[in-house]
């Protein structure tokens, strides 16, 4: 190498420089092509997957604030907050989390009121309020929840989350009334089938739910 360089140092340097510049340019162009959005969403989803929901949420919020064109960041802000609300027992915390989730959903619902995934999250927010205070909220919100699932089903009848979440909510009511849960269990079965064939629009589009559906299926038996 050294000899070669000595033989024609200027030429070699030029070639090297070209290569390096090309690599650098290639990398940077690749980075910008992949885009901040993809990188950010990927990172946030990864954090969420690792159970770091505070960090994930913070990143989703940042993306939501910067990207007004995609509904996904706010969708995840709503979803993560709603899941957190289901998990906590602290009364004040629950209202704060659900209000935050509601705000995020409101922003996106305004832009597109016919997005089945958003309708599901809205129904989940209502369900969390019902779980929080059944005596007060059950009467008031059970109707709207069913209406939301009805609307979502009309828009996306083959969306596994729509089918599963609707069935899961109905099971709660059926258990209370002592009515047959078989039709809902059949729907959960159907949802599990749909999860296998469902193709998210993008890699960041909602794809969760299979595990929960499988647990619900076990409870059916």
């Amino acid at each position, binding site marked *: 190498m050294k000899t070669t360089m000595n033989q024609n140092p200027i030429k070699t340097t030029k070639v*090297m420089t070209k290569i390096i510049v090309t690599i650098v340019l290639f990398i940077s162009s690749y980075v910008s092509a992949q885009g901040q959005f993809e990188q950010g969403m990927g990172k946030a989803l990864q954090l969420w997957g690792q159970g770091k929901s505070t960090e994930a949420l*913070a990143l989703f919020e940042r993306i939501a*604030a910067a990207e007004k064109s995609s509904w996904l960041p706010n969708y995840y802000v709503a979803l993560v907050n709603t899941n957190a609300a289901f998990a906590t027992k602290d009364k004040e915390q629950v209202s704060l989390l659900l209000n935050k989730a509601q705000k995020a959903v409101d922003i996106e619902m305004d832009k597109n009121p016919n997005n089945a995934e958003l309708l599901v999250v809205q129904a989940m927010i209502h369900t969390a309020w019902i779980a929080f205070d059944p005596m007060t909220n059950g009467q008031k919100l059970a109707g709207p929840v069913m209406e939301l699932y009805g609307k979502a089903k009309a828009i996306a009848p083959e969306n596994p989350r729509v089918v599963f979440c609707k069935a899961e909510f109905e099971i709660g009511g059926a258990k209370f009334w002592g009515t047959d849960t078989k039709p809902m269990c059949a729907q959960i079965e159907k949802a599990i089938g749909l999860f296998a064939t469902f193709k998210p629009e993008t890699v960041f589009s909602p794809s969760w739910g299979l595990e929960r559906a499988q647990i619900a299926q076990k409870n059916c038996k």
Partner: protein
Amino acid sequence: MKTTVTLLCLLVTTLLLSQSTISGKVVDEKGKPVAGANIFLEGTYDGATSNETGSFSFTTTTTGNQTLVVSFLIYETSKTVINVAAFVDKTIKLKEGVTALDAVIITAGTLESGDKARVSVLKPLDIVTTAGSAGNIIAALQTLPGTQTVGEDGRLFVRGGEANETQTFVDGIRVAQPYGASTNNLPTRGRFSPFLFNGISFSTGGYSAEYGEALSSVLLLNTQDEPDQNKTEISLMTVGLGIGNTQKWKKSSLSVNSNYINLAPYQAAIPQNVDWNSPFQSLSGETVYRYNFNNGILKVYAAFDTSKFDVNQENINAPEKIRVDLNNNNFYFNTSYKGVFGNNWQLTSGLSYGYSNNKINLNIDKVVNDENAAHLKFKLRKSFSERIKLSFGADYFMTQFNEDFRDNSGSIFTNGYTSNIAAVFSEIDVLFSKKWAAKVGLRAANNDLLNETTIAPRISFAYKMAKNSQFSFAYGNFTQTPRADYVKYSNNNRFESEKASHYILNFQYNKNGKTFRAETYYKEYSNLVKFDTETPLYNSTFNNSGLGYAKGLDLFWRDGKSINNLEYWVSYSYIDTERDYKNFSAQVTPSFVADHSLSIVTKYFITNWKSQIGFTNSYSSGRPYNNPNETKFMNGKTKVYNSLSFNWAYLLSPQKILYFSVSNVLATQNVFGYEYAKNPNSAGIYNRREITPTADRFFFVGFFWTISNDKKDNQLRNL
């Protein structure tokens, strides 16, 4: 060459990714670190989350001045413009958000119910599931502290005030005739079905400058913004039937309901203490139309009610019973608009019109009266920040009352009045911190009938001394035109507004579904109307020299968490009040006041039975009455009043409810007071007659069926 490459690389990367590091620490007002805060540059992805010590650090490729945003659930979001090249190891202090759930609120005098209420004393469902309330909003409110149970009247009596001292508002607009028509000693009910309202705020004193023409209390009812779905509701009851329908469209919705009540079959089955010629019958209907604009909501509410009854009432002064045949027609219309515009401005406006017509035959005499009442209101509210809000507005009350009295000889006596009241009000709300809040307001009104201008200041503030407890204080002056029974004689008499001042100190503790309230108050009355005859008449001499006071203590405890499926509340009120008004010969405690009142309300949900069972016990100590056989005025005291009521709601299926209730289960023989003869008998004694409830017990059975697409909704909230 190596150097060249390195330099080149650096140059390229610097050009592409010139990086600055931003670091620091997030703390709260006390300097404690805040973990989990989201710190980022606005409009970019560059940011970090603070760790346990509150520290954060991240790099950015942006340059120059950028907005650094720091947000965390319970704190106010902080935004600062920084130079990214020089922001290292800086401390960011977060202020506690005053909109957070635990910020102080002014609670003196106010008992709230509904979705928006932060500390709900009553829940919307309570109105209908409280035993003994029978779907009557007023009866449910009578289980709250500060109210008196006046069984022979049925209206709201608040803290030593007469029933007409409470003014009712629907969506902020006055309801001139909130109660159904009735006559002596037959209790009335609230005119409104609880079905259409989802927020109730009941103030027992010290209320906002927005509300006028009320000496003691305001009852604020808010109609639902949006019904949940299309549905049809059918009710079959032992006393009548009802039907309702709700239609919902994209931006608007319409609810209509109608009820027919006829007490004849019930009264045939269960004997009454009342001699009816024709029992109470009514046909009523309500409708609400709502339209959602992008920035506001328009509501139109209309209600009509036609009712009649014909009864023979015993009277100690008449050998024969007196026949009262009453026909009442009532119409109420209310339209309101609430919306936001511009930079944090909110507009609320509306108007109402109420018409009431009574035709009353008293034996052979006849009384016909009409009241037309309108209210217009316009209010603006500007939020300067989360902490400072200013509202101001104007309202206009118009009342026209006319009464013809036709005696059996055919002579007609006509009395009436027209009153116009124009008022302006302004109020400022300041949250100094999460712990301190104040509200200062002023109301000025001009009344053309009385030819006077009144100015009424209102001040309240609140201090939160610990996480779950706070004090609040309210002071205010209140004025009200004397009641129609007096001012209808305005042709020959001059009246002035009646006046009251309230001083209220409130303590509230609220934690995990448990609420404790203690409130003490002092109320001073002046300018009350006095007259010199047995009842107010066209030839009575009236003056405004009456006065009085009321002071007392109200306690309230509600707990829905300690025992699973059990929700209960206890209200206790102590009152010391005296008045010299009407034709009183001295300052005494009026006959509608019991010194001690206690209500216990329980609701127990039995999941296996799909049932909610409730008990309500109301107790009041004896009430004063005047015994003309004694020299001292108003010296008698009735025995104590007690009534235990029971209800049972059984959910047959998600949409069918069977409902059963009994009031005064124990058939306690309650006596509300006595009616004395005008003249003594031959032995020189004034005879008397007991005033008692119309029946010892009241039984009610109803079946409620909701038909909707989702098959989930039911009418539990209507019961």
